[in-house]
């Protein structure tokens, strides 16, 4: 499941990057920083990314999830800070 989630995240990032054309997102990996600090996404890009991702994950796992978190905008603990933290977060939502 983790791999499948990670693959979806990376696919969505690649698609998003067709618009953003950011160097950091050319080859996203587990370690890619997404939001906060030196993350590749600004807050506008983050919301587009999250909405695309929600739909893709919900379709792939046939479960309606909502990616919203009180820590979303925090730099240290946000689930959106890297591909890795986001994968873990989505897995947790799917297992709920």
């Amino acid at each position: 499941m983790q791999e499948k989630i990670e693959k979806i995240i990376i696919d969505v990032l690649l698609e998003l990057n067709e618009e953003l054309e950011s160097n950091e997102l050319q080859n996203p990996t587990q370690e890619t920083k997404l939001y906060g600090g030196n993350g590749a996404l600004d807050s506008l890009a983050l919301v587009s990314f999250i909405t695309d991702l929600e739909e893709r994950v919900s379709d792939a796992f046939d479960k309606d999830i909502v990616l919203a978190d009180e820590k979303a905008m925090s730099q240290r603990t946000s689930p959106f800070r890297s591909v890795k933290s986001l994968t873990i977060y989505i897995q947790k939502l799917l297992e709920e």
Partner: protein
Amino acid sequence: MDRVIIITGTSKGIGRDLAEYYLRLGWRVAGCSRKEQTIEHDNYRHFELDVSEERSVVKMVRAVKKEFGRIDVLLNNAGIASMNHFLTTSLGTVESIFNTNFLGTFLFSREVSKVMMRQKFGRVVNYTTVAAALRLEGEAIYAASKGAIENFTQTIAKELAPYNITVNAIGPTPVETDLIKAVPKEKIVALLEKQAIQRFGTFEDIKNVIDFFIDAKSDFITGQVIYLGGVHN
């Protein structure tokens, strides 16, 4: 292209009338209510749900997007009221009013905006009431829930502006629906007397303002609250 509208609270009252109106204009309409559907039409889809239940709202919005392909307009019409002195208002009443009025508006706005963001087009209309502007005694909780909606409307208008989504609110005067059935006549008369134009509002008055807000030409109109009857803050 067929236009698609979601209207909450379509089993009766203003929401039902609006749903029938947009169906007549050839729109595709999706509506909801806790009780059974009352509209039958090929272009109408009904969802039996409570607007304050996150899962049901998410499911409905995704289903509408899937079937109709887009969502142009959202009318956060579902609402409940209660007339009571605040000293004799139970916590349960406050919770249910805020759940339906504010949480419902929040959840639908959030989910539908996600669809609208991708289209780079959307119109959201929220519902307040003249009771909020007038600080009407006896309606403290109802008016506070609508006051929250007004402030929310104006802030999300900013957050959604980059995506060409406008968010406005309409504040009706009393309109003769079930919502105000239980309010004593003299209270209504006293309220009408506070308006610049002293009559009940009609469904037509509401459609007129909503049609203005959702018009493609109104893309420079956002974060506005329009009260009917010449009431103001």
